[in-house]
């Protein structure tokens, strides 16, 4: 049962071939049996999950089923879940049980999804390897000595290991796409503003975006149908109408123009990864697409731009963790300053502290213009590069990462080299564009991803291209060994 996709589960439930309780129990059993190896979940509440499954079955019996009724999914532990601990991978929120649901969670609940549990992640989503989690590193199901990518590494590993058919993730600089690539699954970061940020613990407000992670583009479309849409409680949520993201999946690719940025195929990209991406592109060409060379001239500035803006926003988003109203509080504070400084020293891990300090510095008097304002200006140039490309092409394609997942510990002492892992994914967040990663091959047994970047609010087109690719290939169906 764990090999079923979301679409297959939804259909099976609809046809009464199995119940939600059966499906949910099967996944819970797998989590209990296998997750010791991957550490992909932080919190699992079996009885709550089974109770939700029972309610789903009851609703279906009553003829009140919706699209995902009874389908179990996992949530990244960044989404607040009412009554279920939401840690964001941090000691700071180790004891935090929200009295509310994130909009993404409530929308998926309304669509009928059952919550299996909360997945592991880099602390406050700051990381590309899942090694910064307070709950320990997640291991890549394809090779447990390798990282799963980050920050949504728990979600990616859980889906890859067939512990959950799908999971939610968030993407601030690649945190859905990079782990999806590393774990051989499919993930989409929607356009900024397409999915509500309410109840999603903030990392960098102008970059954060939630999205689905699953095994196929079709499954992602089914989840995105439930997740996307205007939220009046999020000022940055778009009021544009959503679409049925499954409606265009079967559209053929003839006439599609795919832009290949020269900067994404140059130095730094591993040859084997490049070969997988080229094979994938040939496949798309075979299905009618035209490949066009394009240029994103400010590409080399994306890493520095991102590593000013994201830490700057994070440094103030994380000021609320002060030990006063919720979360960690140090023992016996001597005075107010001690309460703040020790609570935050103890509650945050090294990478989070580093980013808070960098961000504080970038915003501080005398440096604002040189760092933050400058980065905001370059950000506009980076967005303009994409808008210029989209004058010529419908989508942009390239690698998701420079290479397959690296070994645990390989980069954990070297933040700058870790940051360069996201060299192909960061620009999309700066520009607010939708993008996805699709499994595109194996390099020495480890998955690599093809990244597809779309125009603002053109998620349907991306999902269409990815689905067509997945009709022609079976990379998305490959599973790591030893998980049965």
């Amino acid at each position, binding site marked *: 049962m764990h090999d079923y996709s979301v679409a297959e589960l939804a259909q099976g439930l609809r046809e009464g071939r199995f119940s939600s309780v059966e499906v949910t129990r099967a996944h819970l059993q797998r989590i209990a049996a296998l997750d010791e190896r991957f550490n992909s979940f932080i919190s699992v509440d079996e009885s709550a999950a089974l109770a939700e499954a029972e309610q789903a079955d009851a609703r279906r019996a009553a003829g009140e089923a919706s699209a995902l009724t009874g389908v179990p999914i996992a949530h990244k532990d960044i*989404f*607040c879940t009412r009554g279920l601990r*939401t840690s*964001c991978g941090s000691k700071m*929120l180790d004891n*935090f049980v*929200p*009295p*509310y649901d*994130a909009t993404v969670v409530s929308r998926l609940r309304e669509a009928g999804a059952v919550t299996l549990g909360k997945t592991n992640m880099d602390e406050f989503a700051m990381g590309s390897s899942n090694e910064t989690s307070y709950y320990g590193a997640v291991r890549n199901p394809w090779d447990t000595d390798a990282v799963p990518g980050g920050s949504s590494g728990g979600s990616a590993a859980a889906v890859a290991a067939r512990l959950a058919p799908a999971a939610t993730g968030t993407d601030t600089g690649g945190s859905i796409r990079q782990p999806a690539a590393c774990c051989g699954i499919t993930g989409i970061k929607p356009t900024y503003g397409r999915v509500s*940020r*309410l*109840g*999603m*613990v*903030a990392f*960098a*407000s*102008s970059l954060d975006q939630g999205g689905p992670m699953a095994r196929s583009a079709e499954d992602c479309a089914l989840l995105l149908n439930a997740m996307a849409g205007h939220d*009046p*409680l*999020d*000022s*940055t949520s778009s009021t544009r109408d959503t679409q049925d993201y499954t409606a265009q999946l079967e559209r053929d690719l003839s006439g599609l123009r795919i832009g290949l940025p020269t900067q994404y195929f140059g130095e730094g990209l591993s040859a084997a990864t490049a070969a997988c991406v080229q094979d994938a592109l040939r496949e798309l060409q075979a299905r009618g697409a035209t490949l066009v060379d394009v240029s994103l001239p400010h590409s080399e500035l994306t890493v520095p731009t991102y590593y000013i803006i994201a830490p*700057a*926003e994070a440094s*103030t988003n994380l*000021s*609320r963790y*002060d030990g*006063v*109203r*919720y979360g960690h509080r140090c023992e016996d504070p001597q005075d*107010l300053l001690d309460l*703040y400084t020790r609570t935050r020293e103890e509650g945050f891990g090294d990478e989070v502290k580093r980013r808070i300090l960098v961000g*504080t510095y970038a*915003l*501080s*008097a005398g440096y*604002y213009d040189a760092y*933050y304002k400058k980065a905001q200006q370059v950000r506009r140039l980076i967005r303009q590069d994409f808008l210029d490309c989209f004058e010529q092409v419908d989508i942009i394609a390239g690698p998701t990462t420079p290479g397959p997942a690296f070994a645990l510990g390989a980069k954990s002492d070297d933040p700058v080299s870790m940051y360069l892992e996201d060299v192909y994914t960061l620009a999309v967040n700066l520009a607010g564009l939708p993008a996805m990663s699709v499994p595109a091959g194996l390099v020495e047994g480890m998955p690599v991803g093809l990244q597809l970047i779309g125009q603002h609010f053109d998620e349907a087109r991306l999902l269409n291209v990815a689905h067509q690719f997945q009709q022609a290939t079976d990379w998305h169906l490959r599973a790591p060994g030893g998980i049965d």
Partner: protein
Amino acid sequence: MAWESVIGLEVHLQLATVSKIFSGAPTTFGAAPNTQACAVDLAMPGMLPVLNAEAVRCAVKFGLGIGAQIGHRSVFDRKNYFYPDLPKGYQISQFEAPIVGRGEFEIALEDGSTRSIGITRAHLEEDAGKSLHEDYHGCSGIDLNRAGTPLLEIVTDPDIRNAQEAVAYLKALHSLVTYLGISDGDMSQGSMRCDINISLRPAGTDTLGTRAEIKNVNSFRFVEKAIACEIERQSDILEDGGEVVQETRLYDAERDETRSMRSKEVANDYRYFPEPDLLPVVIDDDYIEAVRASLPELPVEKRHRFAAQYGLSTYDAGVLSDSRELADYFEAVAAACGDAKMAANWVQVELLGQLNRSELGIADSPVSAADLGGLIARILDNSISGKIAKQVFEHMWQGQGSADEIIEAQGLKQVSDSGALEAMVDQVIADNGAQVEQYLAADEGKRKKLIGFFVGQVMKVSKGQANPKMVNELLAKKLT
């Protein structure tokens, strides 16, 4: 040396919205601690701000009320600092692009002159919560009910020269914002709080000295006293050849002094940057014109109209236009009696006197405008004298009915019956032979003075009800 003080005021005005500026929690004053702080106000993880339309409207009303430029595109910024009453660790405020730009504001001074005070800007921001310093086992208690209440911060140019002007400005501001209905302006509840920036310079120069900021002064009287003692403190320092330190001070009303605050704290670096959870607020001309069309006649306009239309002095026009309720009351009295100057006099002297003694507002006056107008009408038609009218007013204040009812019930109507008056005059002349002789012996000039004695006697006999004009005429006729 003679010093001139240079004063600028920053007023934090709580706007009269029913919900918070960025959340749907209520803003009612005086609720049990933390019962009006929702997840957004508490900065729970993942919570986001959404801007209240009414707060924007209030700000635009204010901007139009002082003839200021309205920011067509205003931006919210984060002002970062840690304090327990600031749950997010930043205050959402406006820094580079405020909603209200430069404007001017005319104030009337006690001597009848007017002055124009420049308004540098006004911007929207959220209020913080409150720290309660009662001892909870050595801890302070934090109440976040007030956190997120909409504030308009109104900043003046350093145009103010003394405490009286500062108070006149604040009173005029209070009047404006209550006219506009954008705030209750209640200083005692913290709806209007004032920070005072003050420095001294040698009189006649135009350099700026080092300023001190006195935070959170919460009554007109304290503003006046805080400025007076800060001027004294700074001039003492400067006279002794010392230097004023740029710092934040607190006014201690009990000791009537200002003292330094947070001096040991690290210098703040607020790290302002555009709030990424909010988008630019765009206001178009249609919106502005619709708000403009909804504005009432403003206090300054009303003052000018009162002076022109009713011939009142600037001072009287200023007093009567101070609040919309008082101005409406005055105009209703004037309409009812037909004599605006009499109406102005009665409202200011008798009515406001009684209201002040009873600590009542105009809305609570036991005497309606129509009834006061009715009373004045009886003076004007000679039914009663001004003196009797004051008695009647006392009875009206005590709720004994309208002027006519009281005059009737107590038989206070002026005696204008010539027969009855003649009898009284004859009696007074008969009873006061010596004074009559003196009167008859006097020349024309002295007679005018002496006749007052006889009038007084007649009034006494008539218990004040004789028509003084007729009495005068009769006496003049008979004393020959």
